[in-house]
């Protein structure tokens, strides 16, 4: 399983992780190597086997719809990197 630099660049874009050309190369080799080891999974017969998404057999949990305080607004805002008053400042979405 040999990934190309182009494929790795595409995944980095999907993951929104910036990478230098050198990082792309290292990542390409390491990911290719790791994926090689996963090929053995293809040998397992899984025709008709349901996928398991979760370790516990839980279904949708319902609760009463009622108002509760989950924390202090000022505490939550305190961690915001860029603020103006009580507003969260974001970067321009369009160029």
């Amino acid at each position: 399983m040999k990934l190309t630099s182009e494929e790795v660049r595409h995944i980095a874009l999907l993951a929104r992780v910036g990478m230098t050309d050198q990082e792309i190369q290292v990542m390409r080799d390491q990911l290719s190597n790791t994926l090689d080891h996963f090929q053995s999974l293809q040998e397992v017969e899984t025709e008709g086997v349901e996928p398991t998404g979760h370790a516990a057999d839980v279904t949708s949990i319902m609760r009463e719809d009622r108002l509760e305080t989950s924390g202090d607004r000022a505490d939550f805002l305190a961690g915001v990197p860029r603020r103006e008053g009580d507003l969260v400042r974001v970067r321009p979405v369009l160029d």
Partner: protein
Amino acid sequence: MSVDVTKLTAHDASRLLASGDTSALELTQATIERISSVEHLTGSFVTITDDLALEQADQADTRLGLGPSPTLTGIPMQLKDNIVTKDVLTTCSSKMLKDFVPPYNSTVAAKLFDQNAVLVGKGNLDEFAMGSSTENSAFHPTHNPWDISRVPGGSSGGPAAAVASGEAVYALGSDTGGSIRQPAALCGVVGLKPTYGLVSRYGLIAFASSLDQIGPLTKDVTDCALVLSAIAGHDPKDSTSIDTEAPDYTDLLTGDIKGLRVGVPKEYFVEGIDPGVGEVVNKAIDVLSGLGATVDETSLPHTPHAMAVYYIVAPSEASANLARYDGVKYGYSTEAPGTMWEALEHTRQEGFGPEVKRRIMLGTYALSAGYYDAYYKKAQQVRTLIRQEFNEVFEKFDVLVSPTSPSVAFKIGEKAHDPYTMYLNDIFTQPANIAGIPAISVPAGLSEGLPVGLQLMASHLKEDTLLQTAYAYEQATDWHTLHPDL
């Protein structure tokens, strides 16, 4: 009276506090002194909260003075730094969260604080709990107290090293593929990954949500039962929390395992295990047999595929969970100029370390169009087969035994160059996370002068059987009384 905290268990500390032979303040001061004398050797902590600890100790003493108090009142402990603590820095050992002060407490922290437990600090880990050596911490590596040129294991390397070196009486870690049990084994302490859903994950910074579970690292099995009793139970804030009443696990420890059916899965005794580790584990199996358990070989044929399943499922979930780090709501935010998209890429490029990026990339790939069926769906199907296999085997056996880790603690830097070699550390611990079953590692002896862990696995919610077996083994041996000479 002055207390030697290096070997002190929580159950002994509780007795000393109840009788008035020591105070929470004395105990906490002694622990802080121990931290100042050995922390430069171990690097177990990201943050030391000595002022808070002394304040909490004072409150604990007030409570103890009023009469019988909960067992963990006044006892100094450490929490892994991915367990959020209100007003106390919680970094996940990542640059991304290096200044993050959570506005709320995790459920486990709240439960311990309700007992007036004393927090001495936050434990080092591999960044976002991704790793098996604690070398991936963005701040500093942790060193194994048995030999400081070696790793403590990971990702809960800080908690394991802190308990082994007496910098905390006990600690809480988290285990996604072995992150409690493997460092417990490498540092010679007890580490338990409970059944998925037994302990609330509310306030555990998410890595892989279908695998993550919080559990105790302690000096012996009684402490493990004690701490588990304090943190287990249903939590409406975690929708995967099991709606069950957790018993007092300490009541169940009698040491009698006559007639217990012990299975030895042959896939866990393969080439690649250090001969010294194999020898120690085989002797441990003889001990269980000598205690009246019936021991038979068994087979879990899909075990060799567990690692591929794990390294597809965990990174896939991680890639989704870590999408929240955008530099807007909280955490690190780049100084670089640019649009929202550019800033997002810079923030994540600068904020995440190499292993976290590798896993995000791996997961994004496995979930991407064209590869989803071949990787993610396939892994989930094999996960079903692994679960079914465990269910079938647990019809014939109460407990399964294996080594916790294929080797003893390795040298710092020895495996850091090759991600795949590092991933092999957790081959025996990942299956329990995949199946959601409980598993414990207990000290079982030394190889080359370094600790070896015995892993016991049981069926869903059979923590009682697991702890009973571990306790019986511990009573019959004295490995848990060995401590590093630090």
